[in-house]
């Protein structure tokens, strides 16, 4: 960096400009959402500084569908998925990282296969399975296909492999069984990975749409994203004021959490050191 800065100040300036330009492009949809949500519809395509402010759009969005219930559903959904993922992936990753067992290599390849053949493309068959299990239109049905996550298993396995064997053995000498070793040695050391993975998982499932759209069909199970669809498929066309208000409302928890914990978030990713 030093070399670049001293060597070519113009290039550096140009680069800064480029970076800012791209960043502004990238933030534009959010900026627009803010603009449209707090102004009357008449100003949703007209950017004048003296446009009156209003919170009416949020009120209209809130009454257009039972969003309180959708929030609850989404919350239950992401909690359930994340909880199951953490447990299942930890166990499986531990097995792959520290146990030699027959068929391990094949099993690991099969798990990696799920990285490519993910549940999202198997909607037709999974729908039939859920309907055979009598689970259509339940929150577990939204979550089940995602609970054993190849991504999570892979990430945790890589991390567990970096844990020094000596720590493991020391714990065993003290008489800890395999599960106690896992809980006392491996899990604490993988904390950054858990945070990074947890955030990715939560934001993925908070925003997931197609599968929940297919598998749910009532207010009691539908997550926020599916609820948002009501604004996109109306006879009256798109009302950006309401839809941006709804967007902000529904992604507010994630957005705020991200803004508040931005540093920690990025750092935990860095510490996670995905390679």
């Amino acid at each position, binding site marked *: 960096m030093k070399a670049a800065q001293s060597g070519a100040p113009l290039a550096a300036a140009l680069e800064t400009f480029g970076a800012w330009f791209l960043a502004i492009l990238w933030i534009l949809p959010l900026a627009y959402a803010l603009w449209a949500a707090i102004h009357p*519809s*008449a100003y*949703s*395509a007209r950017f004048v500084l003296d446009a009156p402010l209003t919170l009416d759009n949020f009120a*209209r969005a809130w*009454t*257009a*569908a*039972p969003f309180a219930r959708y929030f609850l559903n989404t919350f239950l959904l992401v909690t359930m998925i994340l909880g199951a993922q953490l447990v299942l992936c930890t166990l499986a990753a531990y097995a792959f990282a520290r146990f030699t067992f027959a068929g391990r290599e094949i099993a690991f390849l099969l798990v990696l296969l799920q990285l490519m053949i993910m549940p999202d493309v198997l909607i037709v068959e999974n729908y039939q399975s859920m*309907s055979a*299990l*009598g*689970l*259509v*239109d*339940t929150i577990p049905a939204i979550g089940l296909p995602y609970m054993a996550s190849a991504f999570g298993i892979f990430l945790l396995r890589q991390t567990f492999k970096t844990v020094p064997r000596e720590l493991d053995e020391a714990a065993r000498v003290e008489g800890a069984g395999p599960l106690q070793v896992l809980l006392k040695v491996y899990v604490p050391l993988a904390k950054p990975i858990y945070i990074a993975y947890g955030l990715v998982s939560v934001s993925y499932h908070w925003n997931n749409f197609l599968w929940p*759209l*297919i598998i749910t*069909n*009532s*207010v009691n199970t*539908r997550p926020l994203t*599916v609820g948002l*669809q*009501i604004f*996109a*498929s*109306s*006879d*009256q*066309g*798109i*009302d*950006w004021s*309401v839809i941006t208000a709804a967007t902000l409302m529904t992604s507010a928890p994630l957005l705020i959490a991200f803004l508040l914990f931005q540093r920690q978030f990025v750092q935990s990713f860095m510490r996670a050191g995905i390679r």
Partner: protein
Amino acid sequence: MRCLKSRWLAPIVGAVAMVLASSAMAKDVELSFYYPVAVGGPITKIIDGYAAEFEKENPGITIKAIYAGTYQDTLVKALTAFKSGEPPDIAVLLSTDMFTLIDEGAITSIDGLLKTNADKAWLKSFYPAFMANSRTSGKTWGVPFQRSTVVMFWNKAAFKAAGLNPDQAPDTWDALVADGQKLTKRDAAGNVSQWAVEIPSTGFPYWLFQGLTTANGVQLMNQAGTETYFDKPAVVQALQFWVDLSRKDKIQPPGTIEWGTTPKDFFEGKTAIMWTSTGNLTNVKKNAPFPFGVAMLPAHQGRGSPTGGGNFYLFKKMTPEQRAAALKFVKWMTTPERAADWGIQTGYIAVRPDAWETPAMKQYVAGFPAAAVARDQLKYAVAELSTHDNQRVTKALNDGIQAALSGTKTPEQAMKDAQQEANRILRPYR
């Protein structure tokens, strides 16, 4: 889990219920009622309010009103529930879903339920145009509820600015083109700042297309839902007219026009005329920053527009008591007063002539005469395109329309292909 359990329990509960019913006749009846939301506003509140009012007037009947999402969601939910053995009792679904529901064996015809002369008179009280999509092979399967049609909105200020009579919308295709030349505003470089007309062509282009084909005196399908007539010369002609609006006359934006943005285009003055659903009436009234008018679609060989929107359907698996209660509810929801109230609150067309004679509706129309245009157009309205395997046939036509509008196929070729595809799909039903 819940489903499995109730599947086991159902026969037992049923048996117990029958014993109980025979001992105590005044048993409570519960009806599940699925409905979609397709227009803005607090629809769920209005429906819940109706249900509560009905329950109050009819002790012993409980209505479980379930908001099921969009029309598409509601159909999916109703059909899956039906396949798993627990269908809803009543559902509001698109009138065009009729064949799908019949093919699945999910719904019961209404005629069989009508016992008294008053009941029969009730079924005759709706606008015939709405019944066109509710009947096939001599039976009635749906009861009109939230129905709409295509109308034309025009910007009076833009008409005035273009030197046209602001109170006279173009009444014929020729007048539309002639007025359109004046309404289209171009700068020196040829960039258009205001188009004359937008006929949306995404989402359900076939529906707006019917506004053209009907005016050109041609039907798109037979009433049995087994034949389509996409490649008839009059249909091709109608499509040619639509394409020409953009390509030859240059008074409509080129390419396909997004349904969802058309109202905003109108409010923003990007188009002086738009074709859209009457479901937009309340929306336009609230948001148009200029005086506007609502007119019937322009005529060519004749007038015409398709109807649209949703009907009540009654599902098969009901006890006689439930069936009677369901009919009672549907009748209650479509009384002149309710139909008027529903129309005023949502912008849908009140489904029966006598609803327009109620004091509330009279007062509404007096203050907002545009609301009556859609009603007056019903005289010329035809059934919305609906066949067996409806979604697929419709898609064939939609693709053809879009191909012609975006210029990849000639209207003739596009309609020939669409008809061929429709023939292939419909062959098993003939």
